[in-house]
């Protein structure tokens, strides 16, 4: 029996009563709410603690406008990889090859744009095509040949690193034309004029906050109409205000630096799309079902092979997106690009609450996990801590995060 207190549905609101009346009802039990969401809220708390810690340790430099912009630019490609990775991990797979695929797609793009002088967008399209092809290759071996993903992608890691060297002829290529560099280094600013800060960035921030509030409210109304338990109204408002404040602070800081990074827009769109894909689509559900119990999913009519195949195609696509961003940021292609990226992406997914056994995890969680890694790396760099210590600390954080998760899972009883 579960010991977690779950909001009672014994006395639901009558179906025909106006939802507005029920808006102020719901659980007021903050403790139950926190306990119920411990697995998710745990990482948010961890992120806040780590941000606060490094903000103090770096005398506030961490949260300075310039540095926040820097974190976004520096870790965006890891976050993009983490989206694809967490989906694979939920489905019970893994991909060790993404670092090599980042290198290969960047290399293909560089050869076309830098060496052969094609326009920048040809390079982007070619990189995406290569990424999808690599994903289809992995998907074929995992889904249709039945080889475990660990082996297939371990082979892919070597295979595509080798191809990268072949494509680049063992040399680095640079620089990209300025349009290409815009992908990772460009900003949208000044569109509404400059007043010492970028009003456009603030407007986008305000729209995001409004969108969050409206969609949250609509979900709440629908939940109530369907007689489901919801958090109490003050709590709901508190949550919206808190998230809104954080978002606006973030936008404010960006507005005082260089404006809205283009790569942040790409990332935000991806998070939104994949967040919906995993939670609200049949495909997303099937990924969770396969990871949770493969046999039961197959016997429920889920086309396991097809779903597995597309999971890998998707990972290849996102690896190519990361490859474009990374090559743009480093303004060229290097044979050793993307080394160890797979480990950062995997770590982000696991710190973000994904389960090693599959079936559990969220895109948002992986993003928070990735941000925890990013803030730690950035903070330690600002403090001038050497590489060896950074590596030790990151390794320990990964271990502690998963240990905490396992401990939690033994106690908690509610779903993700």
């Amino acid at each position, binding site marked *: *029996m579960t010991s977690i207190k779950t909001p009672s549905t014994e006395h639901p609101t009558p179906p025909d009563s106006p939802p507005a009346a029920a808006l102020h009802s719901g659980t007021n039990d903050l403790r139950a709410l926190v306990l119920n969401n411990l697995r998710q809220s745990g990482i948010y708390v961890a992120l806040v603690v780590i941000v606060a810690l490094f903000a103090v340790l770096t005398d506030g430099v961490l949260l300075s406008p310039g540095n926040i912009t820097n974190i976004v630019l520096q870790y965006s490609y890891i976050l993009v990889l983490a989206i694809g990775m967490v989906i694979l991990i939920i489905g019970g797979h893994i991909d060790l090859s993404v670092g090599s695929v980042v290198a290969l797609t960047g290399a293909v793009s560089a050869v076309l744009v830098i060496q052969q002088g094609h326009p920048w967008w040809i390079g982007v399209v070619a990189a995406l095509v290569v990424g999808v092809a690599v994903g289809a290759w992995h998907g074929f071996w995992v889904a249709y040949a039945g080889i475990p993903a660990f082996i297939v992608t371990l082979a892919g890691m070597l295979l595509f690193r080798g191809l990268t060297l072949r494509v680049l002829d063992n040399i680095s290529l640079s620089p990209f034309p300025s349009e290409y560099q815009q992908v990772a280094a460009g900003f949208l600013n000044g569109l509404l004029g400059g007043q010492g800060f970028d009003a456009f960035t603030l407007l986008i921030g305000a729209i995001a906050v409004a969108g969050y509030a409206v969609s949250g409210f609509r979900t709440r109304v629908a*939940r109530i109409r369907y007689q489901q338990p919801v958090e109490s109204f003050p709590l709901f408002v508190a949550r919206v205000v808190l998230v809104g404040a954080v978002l606006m602070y973030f936008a404010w800081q960006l507005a005082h630096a260089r404006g809205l990074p283009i790569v942040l827009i790409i990332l935000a769109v991806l998070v939104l799309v994949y967040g919906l894909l995993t939670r609200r689509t049949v495909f997303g559900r099937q990924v969770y079902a396969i990871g949770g119990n493969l*046999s*039961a999913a197959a016997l*429920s009519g889920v086309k396991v092979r097809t779903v597995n195949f597309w999971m890998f195609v998707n990972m290849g696509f996102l690896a190519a997106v990361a490859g474009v961003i990374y090559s743009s940021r480093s303004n060229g292609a290097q044979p050793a690009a993307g080394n160890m990226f797979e480990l950062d992406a995997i770590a982000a997914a696991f710190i973000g609450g994904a*389960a090693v056994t599959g079936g559990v995890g969220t895109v948002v969680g992986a993003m928070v996990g990735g941000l925890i890694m990013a803030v730690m790396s950035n903070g330690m760099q600002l403090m001038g801590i050497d590489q060896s210590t950074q590596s030790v600390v990151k390794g320990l954080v990964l271990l502690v995060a998963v240990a905490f998760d396992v401990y939690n899972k033994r106690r908690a009883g509610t779903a993700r």
Partner: protein
Amino acid sequence: MDDTILEMRRITKTFPGVTALEDVTLAVRRGEIHAICGENGAGKSTLMKVLSGVYPSGSYDGEILFDGKPMQFRGIRDSEANGIVIIHQELALVPYLSIAENIFLGNERRGRSGLIDWNFANAEAAKLLASVGLHENPVTPVIQLGVGKQQLVEIAKALSKKVRLLILDEPTAALNDIDSAHLLDLLRALKEQGITCIMISHKLNEITAIADSTTVIRDGRAVETLDMRSDEVTQQRIIRGMVGRDLDSFYPDRESSPGDEVLRIEDWTVRHPVQDRMVVEGVGLSVRAGEVVGIAGLMGAGRTELAMSVFGRSYGRDIRGRLFVHGREVQARTVAEAIDNGIAYVTEDRKRYGLNLIDDVRRNVSAAALDRLSRLGWVNGNEEIKVAETSRKEMNIRTPSVMAVVGKLSGGNQQKVVLSKWLFTDPDVLILDEPTRGIDVGAKYEIYTIINRLVAAGKAVIVISSELPELLGMCDRIYTLAAGRITGEMPVAEATQESLMELMTKDKELVG
């Protein structure tokens, strides 16, 4: 000889928010077979975990007296050192290790060099196997044995630990009738040797056949201990203790009025997925709307294999034969096609094949028919909740909320979730494979009621069951299956347990 070997006094065990055991007192006489029965979740297994030290001393209130001496077990090793051995329902054998390696696992026989003396161990294992009546080479990997034989290996393992009090949790749940009978004989033989035995069981006929006393546990309390030797204790009497009321009749009544044929298979043949042998051969059967058809067969007869091969070719290879739904021949090459053709299959192993245990009730209910809740690939989460809520009410699934994780529910409620999932696909024919395995008497009755409701609504139902009384109580017509072939078909009015069993064992000699 009323000499008490074990006394558990006023045991109270609480988990956060739940009292699992309250003031339970249990006395077991030396050398008896003591049955413990009760509904799922009544606290039987918890009591045995307290006894065997899985819940260490101090985590519960009350005291345990073994041989008159108070005991404080800190773990399984402590209880085993005193000769108390528990055999769990899910057998704890390592599949790729040999019988002997399993028997001495964690208790290895070392020679003078400190290394394991396998010759000695194998010889010892052979002796132990002989004493439980298992004629197998001790070096055989356990995976090559059937469940019945694995159970015997577990008992041999217990004997190797010089067991004085053997605890068996649902020992016959996964066994067929012949293996069950073997096991019960063995328990009687162990009793002759002075080994006391506590047996948890749902099978009341076994309890009445073998037990000397029966303790009934209900809602964490020991309701009563029945002396099976002196009293006239019937199954009905035990059921009354378990549920606190008499079930008017164990199988609910139903008006039978079969309509048109819904499903028919002809000349159905299935080959084993890896071995070169036929698992199902030339089977033909049919079921009509508003009819419950039973399939009786011993384990290994090909019942599940038949059902799964029909259900989207989920089992076997080289499947041949014709499948008709509503008189029209259809192809159901995948599970999705089978579902589209109105076929639903409720598995015998809900934990492995039926449910995503780490997900909630809501998503499990919708899992097989998400397309009914979605447009252009987008799931309507609110409608999904509504569907789950409807199932919860109609099926009486006891869960705090449809957002609760399925793995935390009791077996009976999990089974209702699986049933809900398949009913939501709106099937015309339901194949129910052991629909009441491992669930308590009250939940069984509810499942039977649900089946009757479906049949009244014009669904066709095929029930596969190892419990002949269940088939006789539920079905209109029964097929018998032996070694992959249909050996008989009869209306339930003409069937008896004896006549069915005769047909179920008919082909055995022929096939060898």
